[in-house]
C-alpha cells in the first residue's frame, strides 16, 4: 500500500508553484522571510516580478495578499504554520475570510514534526483556529502527490484557503501524478470493517502502518484520508461510523478542535459510536527529532493501535 518513496509536502508545493507560474501570469507568491524553507524561493527565482518577500511581517503579508487578490490576482502566501495561522489570524479573518478573497495561505512546518525548533515553532493548534473561520477551506494533504494536485486545484478554485504542509519527508501514499482528489471528499485509503481510522496529513501513513499491523492480529481497519478538514465530509464519516461501528481519529495536532474535534462534532449529531482521538494532548511540544517527538507525544502507529483496541472494546 505505502510506496517506499518519500517526499516532503513542502517540496511538492514549491515545484508545483513553479509549474503554475509558467501557466498563469496572474499567480503571485508572497512569503515572510521563510522562502527557502517554505520552498516559495523556487518560484521567486523563476518569476522575480511576481514574487514578493514581505520580510518578517506576516500580518502585512496577509493584508497585501488581500489587496492583490481584490485586484484579480491569485495569491499564494506562505510562511510557517504557527505564523500563518496565529500571528496573522485576525488579518486572515477580516481581510481574507470575511472578504472571501482569492488568497491561498499555504503554510509549512505544521505540527510537532517541525522538530528541533521547539514548541514556539510547532503549530499544534492551527487547524482548530483556522477551521473556525467562515468561508475558509482548510486542507491538510497526506503526501506529496496529493499536495501537488491540491495546489493545482487551489489555483483554479476561487476563494480563500488554508493549506497545511509539513517539514519532513513523508512516505508517498498515492502514485505520483494522481490528481483526481476532490476537495470536500475523503478517500478510503484502505478498506476494513471493524473500525475506521480517520486521519489527515502525515498521520495517514501512520494509520496505514497501524492498520497493517492490526490486520496481522485479526483486526480489520478501514483507513480514511480526510485531507479536507473543512468542509468536512460528513457523509463519509457517518457512513464509516455506521458500517464499522467505531472511529479513531489521527492527526498531528492538538486533540482539541482539529480533525478529532471536527469528526466528534459530526458523530455527536449523527452517529454516536465509540470514538478515540489520537493527537497531541493539550500541551506544548519541545525540541527533538521529528520521529522522537512523534513517539513521545503519542503520534506513533502504536498509539493508533492502542486507540483502535480501546474503541473496539467499547463496541461490545
Amino acid at each position: 500500500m505505502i510506496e517506499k518513496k518519500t517526499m516532503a509536502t513542502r517540496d511538492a508545493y514549491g515545484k508545483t508553484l513553479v509549474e503554475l507560474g509558467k501557466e498563469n501570469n496572474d499567480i503571485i507568491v508572497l512569503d515572510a522571510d521563510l522562502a527557502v524553507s517554505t520552498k516559495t524561493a523556487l518560484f521567486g527565482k523563476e518569476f522575480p516580478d511576481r514574487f514578493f518577500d514581505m520580510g518578517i511581517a506576516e500580518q502585512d503579508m496577509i493584508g497585501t495578499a488581500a489587496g492583490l487578490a481584490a485586484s484579480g490576482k491569485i495569491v499564494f502566501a506562505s510562511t510557517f504554520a504557527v505564523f500563518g495561522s496565529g500571528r496573522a489570524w485576525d488579518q486572515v479573518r477580516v481581510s481574507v475570510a470575511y472578504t472571501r478573497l482569492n488568497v491561498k495561505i499555504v503554510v509549512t512546518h505544521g505540527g510537532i514534526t517541525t522538530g528541533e525548533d521547539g514548541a514556539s515553532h510547532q503549530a499544534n493548534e492551527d487547524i482548530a483556529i483556522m477551521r473556525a473561520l467562515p468561508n475558509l477551506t482548510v486542507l491538510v494533504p497526506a503526501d506529496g502527490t496529493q499536495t501537488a494536485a491540491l495546489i493545482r486545484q487551489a489555483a483554479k478554485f476561487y476563494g480563500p484557503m488554508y493549506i497545511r504542509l509539513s517539514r519532513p519527508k513523508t512516505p508517498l501514499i498515492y502514485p505520483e501524478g494522481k490528481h483526481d482528489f476532490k476537495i470536500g471528499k475523503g478517500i478510503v485509503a484502505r478498506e476494513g470493517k471493524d473500525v475506521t481510522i480517520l486521519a489527515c496529513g502525515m498521520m495517514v501513513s501512520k494509520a496505514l502502518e497501524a492498520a497493517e499491523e492490526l490486520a496481522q492480529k485479526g483486526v480489520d481497519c478501514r483507513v480514511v484520508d480526510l485531507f479536507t478538514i473543512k468542509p468536512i465530509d460528513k457523509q463519509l464519516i457517518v457512513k464509516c461510523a455506521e458500517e464499522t461501528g467505531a472511529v479513531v481519529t489521527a492527526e498531528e495536532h492538538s486533540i482539541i478542535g482539529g480533525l478529532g474535534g471536527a469528526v466528534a462534532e459530526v458523530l455527536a449529531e449523527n452517529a454516536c459510536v465509540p470514538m478515540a482521538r489520537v493527537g497531541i494532548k493539550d500541551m506544548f511540544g519541545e525540541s527533538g527529532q521529528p520521529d522522537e517527538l512523534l513517539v513521545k507525544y503519542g503520534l506513533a502507529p502504536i498509539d493508533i493501535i492502542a486507540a483502535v483496541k480501546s474503541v473496539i472494546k467499547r463496541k461490545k
Partner: protein
Amino acid sequence: MILKTAIQELEDRARQLRQHIIAMTCAAASGHPGGSLSAADIVTVLYFHQMKHRPDDPGWAERDRFVMSKGHAAPVLYAALAEAGYFSVKYLKTLRRIGSSLQGHVDMLSLPGIEMSTGSLGQGLSAANGMALAARLDKRNYRVYCLMGDGECHEGQIWEAAMTSAHHKLDNLVAFVDHNKYQIDGQIDEIKSLRPFADKWKAFGWKVLRCDGHDISSIISALDKACKGTGRPTVIIADTVKGKGVSFMEERPLDYHGKAPTPEEEKKALAELCQLARPKER
C-alpha cells in the same frame, strides 16, 4: 487652479455628507459620528474631485481605489457613495439594521463601491499596498487612496505596511491620516503619543504632506503635490477636528466617538449644518 465655485460646490457636498452622517447614525441609534465628521472633507474631495470612478460601473478596471482603513467611519463613505450615485440616498437610513448592506463597519461583499472590508484597525494600508502593486503588475494607471485614523497608527501592522509601501516605491499610493487627535479612551497625546508623527513617516521613507483637513483647497493642493513620479508613497496628515461641523460634538468629541446623536441632538446638529450652508442662489 481650481475655480472658487468648484470649491464652494465641494463645500456644499461635504455639508451634505455631514447631514447624512447625522441623520443615518441617529436613525441607527448607533455608529461613529465623530470620526466620520472629521473625515467628511477628505472623502468629499476624493469622491467628488480627485478620484476616477464610475458609480454605474463599480468594477471598472481603471478606477482609482479607496480603502477606508478606519472602518468605523463607514457612515461618511456610505454618504459619499450614495451622493455619487452608487445607491439611493434613501437607503442610508438602513445603516446598521439587520439585513442592510450598510454594515457597521464597511463590507466589500455587501455593497458596490467598497474596495476592502475593514473594521479591525490597522489592516487597510496593507491591502492598499496590494492594490498598488497589482496596478504596477498590470501596467494600469489607477491610484490607490487609503484613509487611516490617527489612533489607528498605534497598530503595528500600519508600520509593517509603511515599510512595504516605501520599499516598493509605491508612488501610485496616497495615504491620508485623519488626524483628529482623539481615540475612544481620550486624547491620543495622553493615551499613547504619536509624536513626532510626521517624522515617523519620513523615517519610514514616505513623502509627508500636511493639510488642513477641513479646507477643501488645502486638501486639493496637498493631493496635487502627491502626484506620481516621486518614487515614494505619500502620506497626507490632515489636521482635523473630531465631530467637525456640529458644535456640541466638537466641544465633547469623546462623547461622540461611538455614540449616535439622539433625535433632539439630530435636530440641533442638522440646524447648525443648514445654517452653515450658503444660500442656494448666488
